[in-house]
């Protein structure tokens, strides 16, 4: 699937990543790797730091200790001889372009139609020609099963439809990595399936994904690796079958018994 030389660099490499907000330590040394084409699912109780870790990957939050690399490139900082230099906002924005993110509350632009939401970043950030961007956007809407909703405003769409537009919007930038921050937590139970199906299809097409979710069924079916976090550290990780079927730690057992 991938060439040997690119396969050697993982898409995401976290080395003892720490994040604190003042005195509050949210991440206390997270080390993990996500290979190309792999789907990593992060689970854990709220406050365990899984969303914060996700937000660190595209530098929405800055890492306070440790190193975080995406595609071999340090996130948010430039490496000097023996020092790190804070990255200029322009360069940080350039890094984010290749990383798609899907939010719990969709965060679609309410003043733009579904189609305009999707073409916004390609046209204005990537400077793609308008006609080409529109064609790609229609194609993406078709892929998420919403080709008839191109002209609808977000407020006229159901939660599931909005989230599918949000996924299409992220995909329009041709990301090499997709981050999902509890993409189905704000949805009616009936609508969760349609979003998960789009994500499954995406995983099947070989997209590298990091997913924070409480959908254990999705994790079991789609994840290559499952990570259980608590208190800002990784408690247990491995293939989902092992972690879900035969958890080793008491904390994992206690958590899984509540959510499954």
């Amino acid at each position, binding site marked *: 699937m991938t060439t040997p030389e690119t396969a050697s660099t993982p898409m995401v490499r976290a080395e003892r990543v720490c994040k604190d907000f003042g005195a509050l330590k949210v991440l206390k040394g997270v080390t993990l790797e996500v290979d190309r084409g792999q789907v990593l699912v992060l689970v854990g109780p709220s406050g365990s730091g899984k969303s914060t870790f996700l937000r660190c990957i*595209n530098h*929405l939050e800055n890492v306070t200790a440790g190193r975080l690399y995406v595609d071999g490139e340090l996130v948010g900082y430039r490496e000097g001889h023996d020092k790190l230099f804070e990255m200029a*906002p*322009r360069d940080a*924005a*350039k890094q*984010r*372009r290749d*990383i*798609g*993110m899907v*939010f719990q*509350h969709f*965060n*679609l*632009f*309410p*003043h*733009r*139609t579904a189609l305009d939401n999707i073409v*916004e*970043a390609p046209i*204005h*950030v*990537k400077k793609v020609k308008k006609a080409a961007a529109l064609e790609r956007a229609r194609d993406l809407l078709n892929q998420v099963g919403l080709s008839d909703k191109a002209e609808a*405003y*977000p*407020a*006229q769409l159901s939660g599931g439809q909005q989230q599918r537009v949000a996924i299409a*919007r*992220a995909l329009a*930038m041709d990301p090499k990595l997709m981050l999902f921050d509890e993409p189905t937590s704000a949805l009616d139970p009936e609508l969760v399936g349609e979003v998960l199906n789009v994500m499954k299809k995406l995983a099947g097409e070989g997209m590298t994904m990091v997913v924070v979710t409480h959908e254990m069924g999705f994790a079991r079916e789609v994840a290559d690796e499952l990570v259980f976090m608590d208190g800002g550290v990784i408690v247990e990780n491995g293939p989902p079958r092992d972690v879900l079927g035969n958890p080793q730690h008491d904390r994992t057992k206690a958590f899984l018994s509540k959510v499954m």
Partner: protein
Amino acid sequence: MGADESTPAPIDAVPLRHPWRWVGATVILVLFGLFLYGAATNPAYGWSTYRDYLFNDRILLGVVNTLQLTVYSMVLGIVLGVMVSVMRLSPNPVFRSVSWVYLWVFRGTPIYVQLVFWGLIPVIYQNVQLGVPFGPSLFHMNLQALSIPFLLSVLGLGLNEAAYMAEIVRAGITSVPEGQSEASTALGMSWTMTMRRTVLPQAMRVIIPPTGNEVISMLKTTSLVTAVPYSYDLFSISMREIAARTFEPVPMLMVAATWYLLATSILMVGQYYLERYFSRGSSRTLTSKQLEALAKAQTDAGHV
């Protein structure tokens, strides 16, 4: 599921009666009629003078000047106000401090004092020179030789307005949920582009109604430019120029009021359309076009 035969008949209820509304409306109409009759027959109103001067050339000149003052100073106020408020919210501490001081000075002193000050600018700064400090001068202008009260009025009104607009714009910007700028950032947009393409357009919905108020208020505040002194706006011409000569202030006040009222009415119509434009996407309510399409789809499905 429900077949046509079982569809119940539409409800045809007797509407609730509101007799007291009718009584109230009648009383108000009678009082208003009495007032109109009194005004029409009272010679102090000088209706013939009113008619003579309503379309007087000087009055029309005053109307045009007042509208120009309003438009120019509002444009200056809005542009500067957006800049000041964006600076106030920017991550750059230099911008933040500059805008704070600006607000402090221009909101903290009365507009009348500011206008008098602007009028005195040519006295304080008699010459404007552009050049290298302690070196040669590249550009030189004698302010006292110019007649610029109109310009100074626009400057005075506009700079004062900017301080108020900045607070209105800031309220609008902070009303946009944080997720919006987060989503824009995640798509690789810069801070400036996020402001321009995502935050400000959404803030407009909150910004426009109070801005409409500001425009209407500005139209009336222009009557203070006499402090500069500028004396060719509607109020100055009708009261200080004409009424002072004819000794009939009441009809001239009515003339001025008529034109002010007409201008604000036109502005209100403009505001309605602006609000409608910027509220698109803010409600689930479908447009009539979309409703039509849905109804059509429903009937089509029903026939199949």
